[in-house]
């Protein structure tokens, strides 16, 4: 303590006293001169060394702090505990919100996928239905197992009611699509007697009458051949009837599809 005390005032007072002596009226000029004198020439005194040590520590701390602050990712290192807790809470909340959002979006996506699957399924079923109904209405061609019934009537004894009976018998036996020569037989088909000819839906039927029928052949053939059935009735009228089973019958006579004028779907 005492040494420092003696050391320190040495240069300080030695510097200050000439100033005070030469110009007490100009203390401001003396201040600048004192600064220059303190800087140059360098003096290796104990006071200088101690101050240098302290300034070294200051420079070290300054550099460390500047470096720590300028490192972008390590700004959290110098943060206080409460700040860290707050930051952590905010991050937790944020990740919670993002998780919720993610869950919602995933739900939405799965809903959209399900609904598009359902829409595709519904479309498929509707198209299936349209084809089935087209077969019934005669607007599309059909093929499948069935029979061919050929009726030859050289004497012209077969009349419209016999053919209608034939069609009814076939329907009762489960026929799904019928065509006579090139006329498709559907729900509103009618048979009439013309001049020596039978008319189907207004079309003249040429001989022989060829029925192409799609259905289960083991059902259809006995239905025609049973005693007192269609074949026997036709033979009574001097006509011949041939029934031929086939695994592939093509019913390709079509009817135009007609929009009903008054009836509308009630669904």
């Amino acid at each position, binding site marked *: 303590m005492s040494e420092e005390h003696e050391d320190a005032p040495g240069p300080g007072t030695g510097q200050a006293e000439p100033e005070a002596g030469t110009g007490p009226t100009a203390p*401001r000029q003396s*201040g600048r001169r004192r600064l220059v004198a*303190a800087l140059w020439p360098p003096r290796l005194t104990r006071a200088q060394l101690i101050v240098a040590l*302290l*300034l070294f520590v200051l420079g*070290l701390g300054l550099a460390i702090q500047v470096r*720590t602050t300028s490192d972008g990712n390590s700004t959290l290192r110098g943060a206080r505990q409460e700040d860290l807790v707050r930051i952590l809470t905010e991050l937790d909340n944020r990740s919670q919100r993002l998780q919720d959002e993610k869950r919602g979006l995933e739900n939405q996506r799965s809903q959209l996928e399900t609904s598009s699957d359902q829409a595709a399924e519904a479309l498929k079923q509707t198209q299936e239905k349209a084809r089935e109904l087209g077969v019934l209405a005669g607007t599309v061609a059909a093929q499948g197992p069935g029979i061919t019934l050929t009726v030859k009537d050289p004497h012209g004894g077969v009349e419209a009611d016999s053919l209608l009976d034939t069609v009814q018998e076939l329907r009762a036996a489960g026929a799904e699509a019928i065509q006579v020569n090139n006329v498709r037989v559907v729900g509103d088909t009618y048979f009439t007697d013309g001049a020596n000819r039978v008319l189907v839906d207004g079309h003249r039927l040429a001989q022989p009458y060829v029925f192409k029928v799609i259905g289960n052949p083991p059902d259809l053939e006995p239905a025609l051949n049973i005693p007192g059935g269609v074949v026997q009735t036709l033979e009574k009228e001097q006509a011949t009837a041939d029934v031929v089973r086939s695994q592939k019958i093509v019913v390709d006579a079509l009817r135009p599809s007609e929009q009903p004028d008054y009836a509308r779907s009630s669904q």
Partner: protein
Amino acid sequence: MIAVLGLVVGVVVGLVVRPVVPSGFEPYLPIAVVAALDAVFGGLRAILDGIFDDKVFVVSFLSNVVVAALIVFLGDKLGVGAQLSTGVVVVLGIRIFSNAAAIRRHVFRA
């Protein structure tokens, strides 16, 4: 001159060596640096006034640093660390400004 060299060497060493500060001491480093800066400006002003005393400088430097760190430490314990460190920085800043004004009057005579 040697003192100025000490400051320069400290900055260079701090930048080059990258010493690791213990994490318990880290929150107090910025406040300690500001307090030390205040002491340095005070010492500079004392040199210009012709009343510089190295013992006074050493004691004021160390006590500035310790007291500033202590205030912040106490503030952290009391839960008002952020506010207290702001207060310390404001007070030290005012002192640095007034010292800088005195230095300016000496150097530029204005």
